[in-house]
């Protein structure tokens, strides 16, 4: 019926590692199935160019989803990533257009992301409001600030030099993909190897126990939201580099994709559980799906249907292969 009836065996270390990789393997199987289906249906799907496209198209969502994963592990949620990105984007962009040196403008964008995250974090951790509703409130607030700041107009004409930073390639891979891969590596290290990672799991897993053990609850939560804000800002920089313009309405509905990627990857919205590898796979699953459906020229209503069904299917495959999420 429920997980009450099943209990996991208690066994030594090997089992522990095994158990973890099994979760991610579930997600991986989901991805492989989807790849196989599209590979069979779409000629040229496995062309190197297309595979790179998929990675590139998944990179922004992956970037956000990594931050989202940390927040979710801490027992929270961040619905404000899109507007955070927008605010960061329009401010960086208008500085760039005004001739401010790149590093300064980029730093300002990152600072915006951190401040947005800080505000979310403080309201959740110190004031004690529910994360969902806090970030629902800031979702509107940050978006409004971006719109007011720009008067609703896009900021156009970003310098080519700036765009080159995020538009280049290295070893045949788009820089955006490489940047996100590095971010993923760092996130993985944070989660697996640092005290902060443990704190995140502890705060999300059992806040009371964490408090009694002396874990700095508030600081841990705030840091998670700040990282999420920072990564939203990074995603914004990548995107405006790609588009050459920053719009105040950029990042609409990003939060849903990011949450979907994290959840497909095994993060539990009850907190205390989530995986960097899983999240990346989740983002790639979503990216692959969009790419494949487009190449198959599926009409948009049916694409929407497929999106819904594939999210459900991915969760089912995941559930079957790795046990209850």
């Amino acid at each position, binding site marked *: *019926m429920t997980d*009450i*009836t099943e*209990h*996991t*065996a*208690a*066994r*030594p*270390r090997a*089992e*522990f590692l095994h*158990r973890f990789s099994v979760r991610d393997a579930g997600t991986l199987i989901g991805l492989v199935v989807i790849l196989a289906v599209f590979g069979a249906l779409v000629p040229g799907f496995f062309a190197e160019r297309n595979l790179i496209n998929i990675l590139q198209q998944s990179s922004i969502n992956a970037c956000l989803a990594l931050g989202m994963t940390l927040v979710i592990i801490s027992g929270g949620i961040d619905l404000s990533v899109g507007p955070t990105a927008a605010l960061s984007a329009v401010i960086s962009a208008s500085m760039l257009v005004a001739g401010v040196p790149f590093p300064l403008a980029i730093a300002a964008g990152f600072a915006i992301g951190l401040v947005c995250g800080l505000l979310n974090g403080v309201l959740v951790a110190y004031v004690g409001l529910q994360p969902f509703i806090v970030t629902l409130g800031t979702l509107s607030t940050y978006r409004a600030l971006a719109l007011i700041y720009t008067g609703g107009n896009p900021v156009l004409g970003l310098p080519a030099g700036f765009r080159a930073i995020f538009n280049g390639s290295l070893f045949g891979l788009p820089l955006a993909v490489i940047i996100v891969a590095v971010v993923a590596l760092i996130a993985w*290290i944070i989660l697996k*190897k*640092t*005290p902060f*990672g*443990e704190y995140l*799991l*502890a705060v999300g*897993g*059992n806040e*009371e*126990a*964490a*408090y*009694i*053990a*002396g*874990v700095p609850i508030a600081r841990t939560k705030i840091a998670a939201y700040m990282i999420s804000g920072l990564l939203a800002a990074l995603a914004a920089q990548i995107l405006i580099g790609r588009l050459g313009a920053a719009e105040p309405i950029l990042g609409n509905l990003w939060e849903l994709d990011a949450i979907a990627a994290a959840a497909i990857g095994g993060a539990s919205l009850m907190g*205390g*559980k989530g995986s960097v590898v899983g999240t990346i796979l989740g983002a790639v699953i979503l990216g692959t799906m969009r790419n494949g459906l487009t190449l198959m020229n599926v009409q948009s209503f049916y694409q929407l249907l497929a999106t819904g069904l594939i999210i459900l299917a991915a969760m089912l495959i995941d559930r079957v292969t790795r046990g209850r999420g």
Partner: protein
Amino acid sequence: MSVIPRLQFEGISKEFPAVRALSDVSFSVGVGEIHGLLGENGAGKSTLLRILSGVYRPTAGSVLIDGRPVTLNNPVAARAAGVAMIHQELQQVPQLSVAQNMFLGHPLTRGGIFVARREQERRAAEALAALDPTIDPAVPLGNLKVAQRQIVEIARALLDRARIVAMDEPTSSLTPSEFERLAEVIAGLARDGVAVVYVSHKLDEVFGSCQRATIMRDGVVVETVDLTKLSEKAVVSMMVGRELAQEQHRSHASTDVRLSVRCLASATKVHDVSFDLHRGEVLGIAGLVGSGRTELLRLLAGADRASSGTVDIDGKAIKLSNPRDAIAAGIGLVPEERKREGIVPLRSISSNMALASMGVFAPRGVIDHTRLKRVAAEKMKRVNLRPFLLDRPIRLFSGGNQQKAIIGRWLAAGTRILLFDEPTRGIDVGAKAEIYHLIEELAAEGHSVVVVSSELPEVIRLADRVLVMRDGTVAAELDRADLNEQAIAAHAIPQSETQAGKAQGHRAGA
């Protein structure tokens, strides 16, 4: 004992909204002293220790360590002041490994950046060695049984090399032999000058380890006594404020078979269990940790599904695919892990009580609250709930009183077969006597009762007949006449020593 005590409580009071949990509590604990803290459920023991460990702030009064007042505003400050605490409710993160839990909040790091996992695991294993070397520090804590988790909690407190160790019922789920190992560890701490405050409802433990004890009742100190000069009985009457009648076992068992279990097996732990339970009988089940007792009860309560075997009630075969089937057949389980499996923390005592018998209270689909109130008042009076506040959320009650509410749940549901899993874990002598009395009364009324307990005296006190389980099967059935601790232990322990050594987690239960 040196002149300046290691730890002094001076006039500590603590008020929760509408509840005065402590008033003017003062006593002191010397260097190297093991000091017992005794009192009924709700006397305020945990509250005092939570103040000591920085979880609560006192409303008035101060704590002195080595003669100097200390501010203990949060757990980190308390830890810095040299206080380590084992909490009554296990405070652990199931997702993290044993070692990570033990070092939570103050991990060992390499270069201040990375967690030194290996080193943590090594040190954790060292701390665990004296208590239970079979626990692997690298497994996720959620995979351990309660008893093992409690040992981890104890080992965590030992890591700190604190000046003061507060232990709030550290042995509530441990067996006597595990306590013995703990007692040695505590004695070692005392030799090193650590002050130990030891809370337990198991008086023999307190008498065995402590010289002095402070007795509390209703938030005030009754007296600090020298245990070498007092009898257990005298201490008990100071705790409860009255004489406790020593009741003897009385059997009410009839010959009618009420429950008949044949060849019951689960996919994991239980193999081929058969027994009968009679009307009015109290059947004890003893065995080592991991012998499958809990799982057997869960099968009977419909919480887990049996892979084979039959269960008959009054000669009729019943299907047990979920707890509802069991409840309909008149079976109710008082579970081992009260917090996780027993209570709905935010709901009131009445709601928790009524949960299993909603059909009774809502015959026409709408709950008859007057009736519910009346029944709740009646049942809670019967189990002697204290404080008698039926609308207060259950999470604000002491463990013993939560347990009483769960028993009340089955009384209200008209259950005829009650399954108790460690019924007096974490429950004080007074309440324990009440629960024993209650169990006997229930038997006298014709209920059939199964009591799983790791405390052999409890089994012997209550049971008309005892099944001894070993490795998931019934190793022996002992009649009341043959009942003694040696006999039970002889059947509980696996035949060959080598086998016992191999089987992880099996610990001598007697």
